[in-house]
């Protein structure tokens, strides 16, 4: 199940022809449908974005900056960056390994493995947090052992990092598996036949071919890692300045009726989301151009 933002398949295909008169709608129908779509997207997409930024700056730019420079806000930003800095590289290495095994080889149990990798997407974020509480919490399976050795996972930074890893687990793998699958094996086999080692083949042949998908998977994984709320909320314990991430800090400020400060921090997260969508658009555009170029090369090689 894809709770991710898959790259549009259109980016990897040449353009199709546009509508012809026989199969088009009348101008009236067309504009009514466009109008309904625009109102729907306006209500559910543009309005929430507009309110985040208008509320963030409602009391002026100085209040905005002051709310971002509060010690608790800075601590939350630092913790969010730390959790993402650990979770994203780990899931990146996993994603590349999983995509290599699944995309380049045929083996028994492959579709079961893909389903298991997708599992974190179909688990409620709250349940994702809970499973770590049940494992590492005081009442949990490993809790007594951890307590004896004076290690704290739940209501501390390690729990937050673990929950973040869990909810962002499939992102990079999901983006890379179809790309490695689609590219086949010929180029790698040629490199190996010419004497390249396995790692050389991977870094010089396979990796350059999937770099845009990889970049996109990392950006997406990072956006979700920084924005996760439910799972982190269960394991964090909400200790101000110590175990609050940015989304949790937003919640605390909002519940204390500090709306401008809550929306100021929220605006940073909204900017992160907009940046992610921007990168997605760029990556799709690059992929389409690459495809158009390779199609042109193929065309020139063939005798007319």
């Amino acid at each position, binding site marked *: 199940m894809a709770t991710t933002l898959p790259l549009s398949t259109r980016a990897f295909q040449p353009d199709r022809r546009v509508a012809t008169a026989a199969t088009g709608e009348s101008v009236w129908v067309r504009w009514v449908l466009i109008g309904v779509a625009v109102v729907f997207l306006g209500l559910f997409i543009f309005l929430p974005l507009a309110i985040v930024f208008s509320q963030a700056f409602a009391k002026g730019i100085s209040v905005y900056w002051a709310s971002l420079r509060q010690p608790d806000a800075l601590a939350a930003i630092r913790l969010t960056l730390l959790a993402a800095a650990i979770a994203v590289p780990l899931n990146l290495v996993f994603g590349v390994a999983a995509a290599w095994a699944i995309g380049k080889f045929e083996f028994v149990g492959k579709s079961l493995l893909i389903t298991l990798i997708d599992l974190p997407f179909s688990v409620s974020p709250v349940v994702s947090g809970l499973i770590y509480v049940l494992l590492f919490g005081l009442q949990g399976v490993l809790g007594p052992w951890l307590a004896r050795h004076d290690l704290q996972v739940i209501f501390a930074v390690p729990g937050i990092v673990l929950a973040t890893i869990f909810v962002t687990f499939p992102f990079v793998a999901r983006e890379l598996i179809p790309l490695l699958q689609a590219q086949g094996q010929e180029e790698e086999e040629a490199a190996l036949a010419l004497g390249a080692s396995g790692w050389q083949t991977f870094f010089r042949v396979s990796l350059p071919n999937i770099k845009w998908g990889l970049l996109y998977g990392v950006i997406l994984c990072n956006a979700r890692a920084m924005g996760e709320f439910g799972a982190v909320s269960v394991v964090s314990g909400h200790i101000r300045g110590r175990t609050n991430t940015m989304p949790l800090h937003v919640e605390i400020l909002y519940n204390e009726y500090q709306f401008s400060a809550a929306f100021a921090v929220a605006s940073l997260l909204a900017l*992160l989301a907009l940046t992610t969508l921007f990168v997605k658009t760029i990556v799709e555009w690059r992929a389409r151009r690459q495809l158009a170029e390779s199609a042109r090369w193929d065309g020139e090689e063939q005798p007319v």
Partner: protein
Amino acid sequence: MTFIFKKRSNLPGFGLALGYTVLYLSLIVLIPLAATFLKASSLSWDQFWHIASSPRAVASYRLTFGASLVGALINLVFGVLVAWVLVRYTFPGKRLFDSLVDLPFALPTAVAGIALTTIYAPNGWLGRPLAALGIKSAYSPLGVAIALTFIGLPFVVRSVQPVLEDMDKELEEAAASLGASRWQTFSRVVMPTILPAALAGFAMAFARAVGEYGSVVFISGNMPMKTEITPLLIITKLDQYDYAGATAIAVVMLVFSLILLLPINLLQKWSSSREEKIPALAAEEIQ
């Protein structure tokens, strides 16, 4: 016949890559999930049933599943419409709209939650006019449905869009030349083609909505028996150190999401086999 685990391949690194994948998957996902079921198995069946079927839990299921269904149905109708408009028509700002359809995937749920609450609160941009009409939006089941509509918005659009893009115009032209009206062509030719993708998107939006927490807790008002969703009930039980209660309800949710995986996978397979069949048929006709 001997059992062959893996087909022969000239590429190296299979053992390392698969080994690491399985190890990491086990450590992060499988073992913690198994621990949850282990913990739940320490409850007797009667205890489990008592917690899972308590009136407060049942009220939360009814709200969670009901509002998720409403949200997914709204997304089914408007998702198909948005996908159609984005593929078939040109209008100013189309590319911007197209890029921003994915916003609900990218925007942290807590941000969506406080934004929607501020819009639909009794003094909000839309909450005030709705309140004047006597409709309570925030802090009511309607608010929950609004948040869950937001969270599921991209699924139907993104699953129908590629199918519409790949659909051959010839099919519609043939229908039109045989005398079908535009509506007949749409309902008898276009609809059957996009139906599997639309249903797959609907099921994914529903599954996502059932587990959603961050965007709902702010707008729902969180009154037990009235506007308390199931994920919040789990958190409430955890805050009261009722680990058995939280686990029992989490197991209900886990089992439900595992059951939902099956129809989603089947719908996705149906949809992709449909997509492959149509160009193949068209190619046959040309030859």
